[in-house]
């Protein structure tokens, strides 16, 4: 380990910007970015499943609030949502005295809440579209087997909708990764936050932002290949037959 650090130090010698300290910031920034994006996607996905089913409900009091939620969160910039949640919670009377403040005090949780709600709204619409495009034949077959509505949803409609939603969801994941760059606006030291720090300290915009851009590019490719792999595995049955 020491040898590695020495090697790294030698490599960085004569370079005033990319020191062990700034690389450390980038490293921590990368971890923060990945945590933030992963957690918001995961929670957003869990929220989106019931919401997407409810979005097509026959009862208006279920359907309309979900429609409204999606409309607002998809129709306004994430930055506005982030400002509202980060600065807004402060003005809830007496919140500083409750246990909630312990988690809302740090910028991470307000950002996580904003990102989660945003991705939940988009994912709901993606799933909604996939559910609506379920082939009629699959539903008729399930009915013919005497499946209940609930069982049919669980065994037939949702699994097939997930598969169809996969390409669009892959785009949403990349979109969230890119959108997470605004976390730096509320003082979170994510990857972009690290780049802004290095820029402001060394007045080196090219070095600071190119380095961050390169890491984002790698992350994007990793996500892209992961989803391509998933599609290959899960959508194999949809491929045209080859002789």
């Amino acid at each position, binding site marked *: 380990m020491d040898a590695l650090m020495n090697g790294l130090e030698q490599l960085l010698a004569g370079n005033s910007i990319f020191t062990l300290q700034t690389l450390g910031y980038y490293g921590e920034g990368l971890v923060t970015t990945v945590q933030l994006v992963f957690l918001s996607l995961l929670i957003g996905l869990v929220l989106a499943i019931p919401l997407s089913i409810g979005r097509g409900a026959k009862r208006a009091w279920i359907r309309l609030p979900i429609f409204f939620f999606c409309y607002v969160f998809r129709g306004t910039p994430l930055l506005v949502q982030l400002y509202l949640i980060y600065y807004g919670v402060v003005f809830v009377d007496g919140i500083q005295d409750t246990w909630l403040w312990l988690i809302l005090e740090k*910028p991470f949780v307000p950002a996580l809440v904003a990102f989660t709600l945003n991705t939940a709204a988009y994912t709901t619409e993606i799933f909604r579209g996939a559910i609506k495009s379920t082939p009629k034949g699959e539903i008729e077959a399930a009915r013919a087997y005497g499946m209940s509505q609930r069982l049919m949803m669980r065994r037939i409609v949702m699994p097939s909708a997930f598969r169809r939603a996969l390409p669009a969801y892959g785009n949403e994941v990349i979109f969230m990764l890119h959108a997470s760059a605004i976390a730096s606006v509320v*003082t979170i030291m994510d990857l972009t*936050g690290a780049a*802004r*720090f290095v*820029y402001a*300290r060394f*007045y080196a*915009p090219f070095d600071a932002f190119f380095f961050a851009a390169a890491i984002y590019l790698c992350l994007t490719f990793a996500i892209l290949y992961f989803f391509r792999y998933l599609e290959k595995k899960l959508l194999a049955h949809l491929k045209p037959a080859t002789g």
Partner: protein
Amino acid sequence: MTFKKILSLGVLGTAMVAATANAEVRDIRIAVDVPYEPMEYRTPDGELTGFDIDLGNALCAEVGIQCEWVVQGWDGIIPGLMARKYDVIMSSMTINDQRREKVLFSDPYITPPSAWFGPADSAVETPDTDALKGMTVGVQRGTLQDNYATDLYGDVADINRYATADDMVLDMDSGRLDIVFLDYPIGKSTLLDSDAGNYRVIGEQITEPKEYFGDGFGMAFRQRDEDLANAFNEALVTLKDNGTYEEIYTTYFGE
């Protein structure tokens, strides 16, 4: 307005030419980052005011040139000078060696200390590694206070970096920050005076080590504009001799 913007958009293609005669002192633009009360800020109707603004205008009058103020965010202020978006920075910028590599400084025109500010009931008495452990510290991104706090306490405390001093005060008010590190006059004006009783200075005012805190505030020029810097240095001496400097100082800092 729209037309002007379309014009400025066409700029990349056509190049807006700022015609100049060489070497002569011409009309200049001065960059300033607001709000940084009482050094530079806006009155409610949007007018720029503050110590830097008044002194800057007096200096320009003394040198005998027209000056125009340009508002520029702090983290882009030195790149903007090098990029010739404006010709001078006069925005509470501390003279230090790191910046000297990039810009040419005038003689210092004021030398205020830095200080820690916290809530009146803060448990911290002397800000040091032990006291700041686990605290959330607020600084303005890219300031010498940022450099100092990052280097000394970055390992033990959470450093939150803000774009403006205003953002920092808001998070201080809401209780997100335990302590902030600022130029003393700014902390005095934005925290002590405007929110009387809620905040106090914590520990001593700080001016050392020079490596961070430098030699007071100076105007920054591009390296090659030596003549311009000299003209301003001479004007500063004149203003100090004839009492104008004293007058402006009293307006913003009292006796």
